[in-house]
């Protein structure tokens, strides 16, 4: 269906002064206010902001799918010149899927589990172009090949659960492309995927965008990703667009304090926990019904001026000379944007002490019975293979890897929730590898604690904050009486910089970052010496991430804690860790100091991982290395080197060694360990993945 009246030089999507509200029993909650943006043909527009800023609501409004409670209360959304806000269901139905298509965050959830992939794909042209079934399937086959999926015929006959996450997302993309839409909306399309898989999807989206000339509305919280994919972007804060413009211009010449604060709170190459610490944005994101008068960012802004910033609603000011660059800051002409950021007092580097934790040849195998009813044969999953390392007092050791690499199993074994299959764990010179937690003494238990990933899960929702911390104190035999423990609990709240009044609050009254702080307080209740932090900030917004990371670092400095920081996010790992251990399918493939790991020579997997992480800095030039395929299942690992199925250096190893033999650990200069067959010369010839362009 093509609209003959539409002139391709006009914008494809034109949103003007859009306001959206959700209506609950109690009140009207404005979700988006006075939002405008324009997407031209073939252009990729990024919508970026923290959770709750309204970016997904905008996307759903374009689709006119706001649910029962959501309503567009003002403004217009023009698609090819026609106002979507006034269309009836039948008109909308013709546009959805054929002219505007959407790609979602959770690929598994967005595919129908009980329908074959082919049927789900073929449905689109059958509805919109009235195509016959055979033609539609043929088209589906072609598009599946286009999204670079192997064996398209088998794919079409599969059910979604038989595909991996990356494959599912490719299918969702194929489904969106079935009728060659003019506009593609992507709502955090790679958030649920591993970084190396994400890189492939991002490449695909970019290529297909060019190939089909599709315009894109790309929603993400990840500035690096936006820089990778988009031409223009729009930064949103608390329901409003605060800055919009060309990506490069906004990144290099930001003109809104929020954008600036956002960039200062993300760990870019060059940031360092001691000399260049991150600057967290103070305060909290305002709740939708508690937004301040005037500028929404006012209360958290360094440049706030009473009586001006909170006087009246702030309009968008165009930035002259730039390409459609605009900012919603009343003081933008007065602020000195090039002033270097006020350096927080740089901190002493924590001295590294004696070895507190030592693992040797640790192995953890599980036997799982496959098949839905446990009737299949038992298989052995090698979650951890010959893990050896040591961690010292006051040190931060990062454990990096994607899903299935065995980092969580490792944490469980260390904590004593599981016992090791073989090997030894020495904790303060005590063997604990086969001591389950119930048999460990209180001292051991309280000195090894854990900070969990999901802030919404980490606290018991039906117990108040104080009670949960006091319980930890009781268990760790801290304090002699209830009063002492109560006092100690308040001190712990001080330690994690939470108001003491929070002791009486229930977890649901806290924001994600605050909950994570309580989780940290609880972990340190018994004076923990070793803390395992399992992706402690990955579920938090970037501005909160910085604050929580800082807090962890501060406590570490004070208590000389050994921090085992598990993460898949290499940016934050580079920022805070002293040493890094890279894991792949249960193996440690590379280990060394942060500098050693982030500079060549790399293990081929580390190289790909580094290349895959998007960096929100226009000056950084990355070499693109996109890995083929997905991470193999830990149930069925490839023979020989675990990484050989995706390795781009494999041809450099003579005699097919990679297919047959587990590589040895090569110890390079300075104790840098790499588990690879590549010869020292080849390793030495590697080029850095990330280069910072000369100014």
């Amino acid at each position, binding site marked *: 269906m093509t609209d003959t009246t539409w002139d391709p030089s006009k914008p494809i999507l034109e949103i003007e002064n859009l306001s959206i509200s959700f209506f609950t029993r109690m009140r009207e909650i404005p979700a988006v206010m006075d939002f405008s943006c324009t997407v031209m043909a073939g252009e990729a527009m990024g919508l970026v902001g923290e959770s709750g800023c309204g970016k997904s609501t905008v996307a759903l409004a374009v*689709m006119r*799918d706001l649910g*029962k409670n959501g309503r567009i209360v003002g403004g217009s959304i023009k698609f090819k010149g026609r106002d979507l806000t006034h269309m009836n269901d039948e008109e909308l*139905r*013709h*546009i*959805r*899927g*054929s002219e505007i*298509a*959407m790609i*979602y965050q*959770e690929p598994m*959830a*967005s*595919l*129908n*589990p*009980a*329908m074959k992939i082919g049927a789900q794909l073929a*449905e*689109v042209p059958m*509805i*919109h172009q009235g195509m016959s079934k055979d033609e539609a399937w043929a088209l589906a086959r072609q598009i599946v090949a286009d999204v670079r999926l192997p064996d398209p015929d088998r794919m079409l006959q599969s*059910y979604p*659960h*038989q595909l991996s996450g990356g494959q599912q997302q490719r299918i*969702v993309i194929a*489904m969106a492309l079935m009728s060659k839409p003019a506009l593609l909306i992507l709502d955090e399309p790679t958030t649920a995927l591993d970084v190396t898989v994400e890189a492939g999807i991002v490449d695909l989206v970019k290529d297909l965008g060019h190939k089909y000339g599709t315009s894109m509305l790309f929603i993400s919280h990840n500035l690096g990703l936006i820089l990778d994919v988009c031409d223009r972007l729009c930064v949103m804060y608390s329901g409003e667009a605060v800055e919009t413009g060309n990506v490069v211009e906004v990144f290099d010449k930001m003109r809104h304090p929020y954008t600036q604060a956002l960039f200062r709170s993300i760990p870019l190459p060059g940031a360092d926990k001691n000399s260049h610490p991150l600057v967290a944005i103070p305060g909290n994101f305002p709740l939708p019904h508690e937004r301040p008068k005037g500028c929404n960012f006012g209360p958290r802004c360094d440049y706030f001026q009473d009586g001006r910033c909170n006087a009246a609603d702030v309009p968008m000011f165009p930035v002259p000379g730039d390409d459609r660059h605009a900012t919603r800051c009343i003081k933008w002409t007065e602020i000195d944007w090039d002033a270097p950021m006020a350096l927080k007092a740089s901190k002493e580097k924590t001295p590294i002490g004696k070895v507190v934790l030592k693992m040797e040849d640790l192995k953890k195998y599980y036997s799982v019975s496959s*098949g*839905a*009813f446990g*009737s299949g044969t038992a298989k052995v999953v090698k979650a951890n293979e010959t893990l050896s390392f040591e961690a010292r007092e006051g040190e931060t050791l990062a454990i990096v890897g994607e899903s299935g690499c065995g980092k969580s199993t490792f944490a469980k074994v260390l904590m004593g929730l599981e016992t090791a299959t073989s090997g030894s764990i020495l904790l303060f010179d005590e063997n604990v590898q086969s001591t389950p937690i119930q048999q460990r003494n209180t001292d051991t238990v309280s000195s090894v604690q854990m900070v969990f990933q999901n802030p919404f899960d980490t606290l018991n929702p039906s117990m108040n904050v104080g009670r949960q911390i006091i319980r930890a104190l009781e268990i760790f035999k801290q304090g002699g009486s209830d009063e002492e423990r109560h006092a100690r609990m308040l001190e712990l709240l001080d330690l994690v910089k939470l108001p003491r009044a929070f002791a009486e609050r229930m977890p649901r009254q806290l924001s994600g970052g605050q909950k994570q702080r309580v989780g940290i307080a609880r972990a340190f209740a018994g004076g923990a010496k070793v803390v395992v932090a399992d992706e402690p900030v990955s579920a938090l917004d970037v501005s909160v991430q910085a604050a929580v990371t800082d807090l962890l670092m501060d406590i570490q400095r004070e208590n000389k804690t050994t921090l085992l920081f598990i993460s898949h996010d290499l940016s934050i790992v580079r920022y805070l860790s002293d040493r890094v251990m890279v894991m792949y399918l249960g193996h440690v493939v590379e280990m060394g100091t942060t500098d050693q790991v982030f500079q060549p020579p790399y293990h081929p997997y580390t190289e790909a991982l580094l290349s895959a992480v998007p960096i929100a800095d226009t000056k950084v030039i990355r070499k693109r290395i996109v890995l083929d395929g997905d991470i193999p299942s830990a149930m069925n690992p490839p023979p020989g080197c675990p990484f050989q199925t995706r390795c781009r250096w494999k041809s450099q190893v003579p005699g097919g060694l990679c297919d047959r033999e587990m590589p040895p650990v090569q110890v390079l200069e300075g104790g840098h360990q790499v588990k690879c067959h590549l010869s020292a010369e080849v390793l030495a010839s590697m080029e850095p993945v990330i280069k910072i362009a000369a100014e």
Partner: protein
Amino acid sequence: MLKFVARRLGVMVLTALALTFVVFYLTNLPPNLEKLARTEGSVRMTDQAVASWIENNGHGGSVFGRYAQWLGIAPGWVLTDDKGVTRGRCIQNNQDPATAATYCGVLQGEWGFSTVFKKPVLESVLQKLGSTGWLMMWVMIVMVPVSLIMGVLSGMREGSRLDRSLSIVAIATTATPEYVSGVILVAIFASATAGISPILHDWGWISGKTLFLGTATSAMDNITFWNFALPVLTIALYGIGYIARMTRASMTEVMTQQYIRTARLKGVRFRTVVMRHALRNALIAPFTVIMLQFPWLLNGVVITEALFNYKGFGWTLVQAAGNNDIDLLLGCSVVAVLVVLVTQLISDIGYVFLNPRIRLA
């Protein structure tokens, strides 16, 4: 798949053994046997006579041994009394003990003799089961489509007016057990003094005293709408509400799934979204529920058959239990347990069949 069925069958056999043993144990408690002795022998027997009667009729010994005999995996008892007459579990009247079989339990098809109906148990149970089969068939024909349609209609647009009204109906019917709905239905449709029958009679619209018949006895020979509608409705009503609520819950959950949004935003018509994308996923749960309803339906069958005096399986069960007819009660239990287990098996297999995620895992 084969392995799965085999495993399920194994569990099923184990369950059947456990359940029949429990029934056997509970029906063959000493007080029941004493009662049996007094009804079969004489009411004025002395305690000693009762004890010896029990002993002489093979009801002595360990309960496990007797269970094994009843099941047919142990040789039936044989006793020769003082008069030299040899009697035994497997020896019919006037039969030569030498020609009698060694094993004669349920597995051999020897289900015993009913003291109430004076007929072999197997014969009477099968006959009554046929009558109940008709009842169940009509209940299913009414209940399943009605409840599924109700559930799907109310679940597809949660919170709509249609949903609200259908939900209230469904809740009301689940709040009405068979013995209440039966009474109310009879009051409205089959009472000569109340409900609509007297009015219709006065207007001359019906020739009989009542619109529907208050009993279903005549349906034993000839099922008509007028004698069968009320019992069928009584059983179906309770189930309708329950299954409709399950279907609705399942449907509302499916309708909030992302893949439904995907379908909607692909431009699929709402009707097609419901029929092609939602229905199959939404029916997985209710299907299991319908099958697991059987032990429950049996309850309704017993009540309804008692209420409408329909001499089917449920009615037989009541008679057997009320008259201490041990063999008949055991027979009924075996049948009931088998029916329940078979439906459970069907439900499991059907679940696997409906849900592709499980089939190929």
